[in-house]
């Protein structure tokens, strides 16, 4: 027995030894592997001036796709390799915010939505383009760019230095059903009162008028908290004379003014209009609004140009060819749409600013922008808006150009994300019936004041 036991033990010794050797090898492998995994994060980049490589952060969507295509064309034209990092909208902001703050220089160019610009620019995270323009013998962006779009690229707004160039020129449009307006002898709405009258008329008479035999609601809007509710409220808010900030709006930390009478009146009007909107619109986002419009169950709406192509496509739309696109109605003041442009900027930590700027100029030039426009992105240049080939393809271009030219930006504050969130919560609460318009605006004002106060410390 003992011998056997002993034998077993000594037998097991050999495999154990090789096991140990095996374990040691594995340990080494693990160590090497983890070193390899860590190395890419140490920021060793070989790029320098005249680099043959650029990296570009874009959003996933039709706007980013156009820029990706431009990057491929640029590659075959110049031989400069363009690496693309693509992220969904929300992640793009997170990535850029973190990367720019940490100044890693991971991206030579970034695509950004214009409300993010004040934040990046005020924290000095972007490259001033003036010296780069000078090197090219130019004084700044050319006059062909729409003024409202270029104003977004300056910090401070409209008057400061240029830190980006506009790539996609979205601004809201007023969508309405041409056929129903003709049927009830209604004119294209010039004011929000016209909109309300038309909504009432259509709502009363079209209880079974939709293509599916159901009700046609007079109006449909997005009042889900956040960006949705705020974007659909702003044109009403402004036209009633509402302003986010008071007389000191040019100061760095201005006082909010959303509890003034004009603002409360605007919210009351929105709630009134909501009586002719589908149930539950207080939770609607773009998808619900477009579903109603495409199904023919709503007659009017504020929407972004990106949706226009879907309305002329009979595959997607039950009302193809019946939708008109107009500029924003007014009220106490002229109607103005909210602008929402995609910009391209060079992070301050970029190590190939010259090469990046060359690409930036190339991608935003008229002939490249036309390609992007053909793919469905509204341009930011007058010459592209008036291009005959594009006009034939996009009959709404004249309305889009007029809308963009007199559009307004969201308040230019670095705290916009936070303010928009709070403002959206209270607009949504008022529309769902949880709060009165007065209460909602008073509470929103108090919360916005807190945000401003906190950031001024």
């Amino acid at each position, binding site marked *: 027995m003992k011998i056997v036991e002993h034998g077993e033990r000594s037998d097991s010794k050999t495999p154990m030894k090789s096991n*140990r050797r095996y*374990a040691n090898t594995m*340990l080494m492998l*693990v*160590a090497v592997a*983890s070193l390899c995994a860590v190395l890419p994060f140490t920021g060793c980049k070989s790029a320098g001036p005249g680099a043959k490589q650029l990296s570009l952060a874009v959003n996933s969507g039709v706007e980013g796709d156009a820029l990706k295509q431009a990057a491929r064309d640029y590659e075959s034209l110049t031989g400069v390799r363009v690496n693309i990092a693509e992220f969904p909208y*929300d992640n793009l*902001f*997170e990535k850029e*915010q973190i990367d720019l*703050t940490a100044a890693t220089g991971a991206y030579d160019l970034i695509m950004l939505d214009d409300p993010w610009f004040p*934040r990046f620019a005020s924290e000095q995270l972007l490259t001033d383009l003036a010296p780069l323009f000078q090197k090219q013998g130019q004084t700044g962006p050319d006059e062909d760019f729409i003024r409202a779009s270029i104003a977004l690229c300056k910090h401070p707004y409209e008057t400061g230095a240029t830190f980006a160039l506009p790539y996609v020129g979205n601004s809201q449009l007023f969508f309405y059903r041409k056929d129903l307006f003709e049927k009830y002898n209604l004119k294209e709405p010039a004011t929000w009162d016209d909109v309300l009258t038309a909504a009432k008329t259509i709502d009363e008479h079209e209880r079974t008028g939709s293509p599916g035999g159901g009700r046609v609601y007079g109006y449909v809007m997005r*009042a*889900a*908290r*956040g960006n949705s509710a705020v974007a659909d409220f702003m044109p009403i808010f402004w036209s009633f004379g509402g302003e986010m900030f008071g007389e000191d709006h040019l100061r760095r930390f201005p006082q909010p003014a959303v509890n003034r009478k004009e603002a409360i009146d605007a919210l009351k009007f929105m709630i009134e209009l909501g009586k002719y909107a*589908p*149930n*539950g*619109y*207080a*939770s*609607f986002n773009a998808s*619900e609004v477009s*579903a*109603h419009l495409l*199904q023919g*169950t709503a007659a009017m709406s504020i929407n972004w140009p990106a949706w226009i192509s879907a309305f002329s496509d009979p595959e997607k739309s039950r009302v193809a060819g019946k939708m008109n696109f107009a500029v924003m109605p007014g009220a106490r003041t002229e109607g103005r749409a909210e602008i929402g442009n995609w910009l391209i900027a060079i992070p301050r930590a970029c190590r190939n600013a010259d090469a990046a700027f060359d690409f930036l100029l190339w991608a935003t030039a008229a002939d490249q922008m036309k390609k992007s426009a053909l793919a469905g992105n509204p341009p930011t240049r007058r010459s592209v808006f008036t291009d005959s080939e594009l006009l034939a393809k996009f009959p709404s271009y004249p309305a889009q150009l007029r809308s963009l030219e007199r559009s307004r930006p969201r308040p230019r504050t670095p*705290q916009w*994300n*936070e303010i928009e*969130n709070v403002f959206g*919560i*209270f607009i*949504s*609460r008022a*529309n*769902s*019936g*949880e*709060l009165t318009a007065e209460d909602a605006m008073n509470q929103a004002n108090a*919360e916005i004041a807190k945000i401003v106060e*906190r950031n001024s*410390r």
Partner: protein
Amino acid sequence: MMRSLGKNRSHAATVRGRETALPYLLIAPTVAVLVALSIYPLIYAVRISLQTGSGEAARWSLANFTRLASDKFFIEALAHTFIYAVVALTFEFLLGLGLAVLLDRPLRGRSLFRSALLIPMMLPPVVVGVVWRLMLNPDFGAINGTLKGAGVNTESLTWTASPVLALASVIAVDIWQWTPFMFLVLLAGLQAIPQEPYEAAIVDGSTAWQTFRYVTLPLLKPAILIALLLRTMDLLRVFDQIFILTEGGPGFSTETVSLYIYRTAFRFSDFGYAAAMSFVLLLLTNIVSVGYIRLLQKQEAA
């Protein structure tokens, strides 16, 4: 001879040394990963929660923690989180227990029921969110469509769009998805109970209720506590379904602490305040978990 002995001895010593070093070497990668991925971020989170401002402008202060007490949104989000957790946990537990007891018996088609019941749990919460978002749509959704078909007036049943019904709607979706988890854990617990106590109970002439109350429940208690513990931890940090279903709306009516933390960190870039909120959530989760574990230990000791 001596030399070779010494050689042997030193060889034995290195072998022994290697033997004592080996376990440490083997756990080293795990420890390294743990330090890199858990300990360091945790320390970093403590640091930023105690700072205001960022970069060179950063100052040490307790402002992030004092702000919590006066932040109406945080307090409301905390209340939603607790209502969500308590209601969902209660329903999931009762339904899960009922189903487990039912399907523990020899029923025809039992295995079919068992596997069908597990489907909701297998789905990613994001998919569940999208599916229910469509089903709960007041105009085009299947729920109101069915109700309309049955002659119910659905005018005011706007589910996720109604400030009154929204929280109940997201809780209902959670119950739908996670009752199967309770069921699974409790069923496993039931099947681990030996037959003898039941036989003894029958001999003693106990009724079905008495058997359930005095035999099944006490023996099932460890499984119950573990199921409750795991679900509570998950419920307190619920994020994905709500994010897809309502994004915390309408208004603020379904915002939970996790959503608020996410927004504060990644939308408003206020990482310090987000870290402070995370600690409060962590603390509360810990208190509840320790409570469960105490109960469990008491049970084992008894």
